């Protein structure tokens, strides 16, 4: 079995790997560090520990994906292994969708149920009468307690619209890149992939700009009641995913440059492309439900 590693007949089962164990160590360091940090710990056990953990994660990714790439290039993965990877990625993306679903759920609940109730609509008559008398429901809102103070929102048709265009465009460029890869046009592949990364980066730049604007001029913060909470958590987690996606695309760019992918064997590329499309679709939901409506 162990000698069969270069054959395509068998499902490739790697022998040992230290990377999962390293991953657990990284996870322990990161989480302990993060928890201490959130709890305002100063000294080595807080932020430094967390960043050590993250550093170990980075080593881990190079190590783990490095061996996967090596094995892939050595041709030990047959079609079936490839399908396993695809399924893994697809179900991973599904789990991410459900993660966002929790936050969208919170947004809908607040907009359609809790805020109207507090404002005395329907089921909430008594709530309004006995506790929040005088509050009229509206969206956006920071609640009857005016939590975080009066704020303004970001108009949908400015930067957010631009960002929507950017992400949609990046969805197109990555598809062009994919076609180029399949057609074997290496140069075009690299150009369009790079364009995708750039579009992602510009998106992030504007997103950061928007956040700064919100905090410095609009008094719109995480603490701006339930509007601020849903706004920043949704866009924030989305931004985090764009960041990760952009990093992965960059790695893929280098792999393309090194010629890791062939016309019909480039699962790594496709996985990241799927991920990028997923991030794109989530943004459309955000644009619609967070900014426009």
């Amino acid at each position, binding site marked *: 079995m162990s000698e069969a590693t270069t054959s395509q007949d068998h*499902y490739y089962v790697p022998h040992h790997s230290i990377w999962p164990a390293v991953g657990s160590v990284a996870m322990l360091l990161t*989480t302990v560090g993060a928890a201490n940090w959130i709890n305002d710990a100063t000294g080595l056990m807080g932020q430094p520990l967390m960043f050590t953990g993250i550093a170990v994660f980075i080593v881990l990714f190079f190590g783990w994906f490095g061996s996967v790439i090596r094995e892939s290039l050595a041709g030990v993965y047959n079609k079936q292994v490839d399908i396993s990877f695809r*399924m893994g990625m697809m179900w991973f993306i*599904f*789990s991410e969708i459900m993660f966002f679903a929790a936050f969208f759920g919170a947004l809908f609940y*607040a907009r359609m149920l809790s805020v109207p109730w507090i404002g005395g609509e*329907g089921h909430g008559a008594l709530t309004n009468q006995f506790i929040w008398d005088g509050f009229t429901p509206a969206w956006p809102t920071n609640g009857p307690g005016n939590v975080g103070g009066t704020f303004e929102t970001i108009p949908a048709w400015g930067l957010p619209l631009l960002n929507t265009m950017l992400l949609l465009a990046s969805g197109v460029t990555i598809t062009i890149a994919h076609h180029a890869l399949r057609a074997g046009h290496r140069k075009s592949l690299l150009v369009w992939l790079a364009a995708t990364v750039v579009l992602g980066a510009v998106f992030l730049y504007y997103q950061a700009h928007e956040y700064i604007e919100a905090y410095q001029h609009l008094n719109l913060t995480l603490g701006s009641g339930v509007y601020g909470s849903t706004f920043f958590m949704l866009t924030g987690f989305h931004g985090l995913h764009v960041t990760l996606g952009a990093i992965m695309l960059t790695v893929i760019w280098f792999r393309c440059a090194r010629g890791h992918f062939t016309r019909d064997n480039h699962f790594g590329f496709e996985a990241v492309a799927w991920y990028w499309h997923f991030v794109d679709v989530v943004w459309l939901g955000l644009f619609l439900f967070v900014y426009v409506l």
Partner: protein
Amino acid sequence: MAHAATHDPVAHDDHHDHKPQGFVARWFFSTNHKDIGTLYLLFSLLMFFIGGAMAMIIRAELFQPGMQLVEPHFFNEMTSVHALVMIFGAVMPAFVGLGNWMIPLMVGAPDMALPRMNNWSFWLLPVAFTLLLSTLFMPGGGPQGGWTLYPPLSLQGGNGVAFSILAIHVAGVSSIMGAINIIATILNMRAPGMDLLKMPVFVWTWLITAFLLIAVMPVLAGAVTMLLTDKYFGTSFFNAAGGGDPVMYQHIFWFFGHPEVYIMILPAFGIVSEIIPTFARKPLFGYQAMVYATASIAFLSFIVWAHHMFTVGMPLGGELFFMYATMLIAIPTGVKVFNWVSTMWEGSMTFETPMLFAIAFVILFTIGGFSGVMLAIVPADFQYHDTYFVVAHFHYVLVTGAVFSIMAATYYWLPKWTGNMYSERWGKIHFWSSVISVNVLFFPQHFLGLAGMPRRIPDYNVAFADFNMISSIGGFWFGLSQLIFVGVIVHCAYFSKVRATARVWENAKGLEWEVPSPAPHHTFSVPPVLKPGMLAHDDVSH
């Protein structure tokens, strides 16, 4: 128990196609589904004892009225952590361990689809539980708001809050990766000819469970993330003054929480559906109905969550919808129960330990299901909610349901894992001791709840004294009985002289019984060729 000198325990070790590996390499860097399965199972056993020890503290404090042993806040920690440890540390990992061991064997795969990730899934669990259990030693202590972590109470904790929440995140990542692996294995790694509708029922139930896991664990992660930001970063998800609502948390939590309880019972259904036909020597009744019933239960589990929240003051329409939807679950579950009984009907039964546990499962789980249906009836739940009636309900489905099925599975497959037969005599002693004591432990809790004893209280009126004392005695007895379980396992793995055959049980069917006992380190490197009669469900004209 034998007292043979502890000669080198070779039971686990197979000497074949490659160099012997070091201990560290084998257990820490493993990519072997059997070794990882073993790790999961051992971890689960450890957690069962830790969670059980906490339950013993609970039962000791509740032995008599008056506060004798622990402060109320510590009692609340025990309740909360007991549940978290049992659910995320004992029951779920046990099922993942069984799945790891058995699914590749059952579908004729060389290993799990993503072997390295498999190992990571396991090794995240010790990380998660280090985080969780460490909170018990922090100023402010561990979670004290119940395993459901309802805000605003759960936000009142100290530093431990962040640690517990991150622990849940890590355990969630572990579960999601484990589930992805199982789905990929089942959908992609079956031997040629192993059609979906020929798979063993255990594999089917795990496939559906894995789907549930991927769908709901991220939602739990989202819910606790909101807790984290509400506590530490000033968000107002669960604060009415900011436009949020504490009840919103409950909706999100139970959207996870209800499917979660089926995550803990569907694999159990699968196990029992393997065991009963073997010992009844008769094919499983209504194989396809079993599969469809499992799928229906999984579907329904997404639309019943608010039955945990009947008393929060939902609009009437909501209460009615969730009542009807919840009651519907009795139907597919009933189909399962009736099918098990029909499988036994006109069989030729013997009662080895796995069968005993499986039969006890069917009866006692059904009792738990009955109290579940009673709880579903909203006006009556106004009385039952948050009393010991609920505690009785869920321990029947969890302990005599999920845990009993895990024990049944252990006895059933232990000979396959170790190559030795366990002591049937001690297995039976373990069974009878457990099955009697567990009823002494949990049955009186129905009465306590109906009489008006709330759950999650460290002390109570003297009217509740008698049944509490009986329950505690049952609890200590049940706890001690589990030492026998460990004894039987250790004996079987290291001391038993009776070698197991490949088939182990007279009428056992399925690929796992086609490989030698103990199962070699690597099996099905080349996909097996299926022959008629090898599978329990070759013929699925129905």
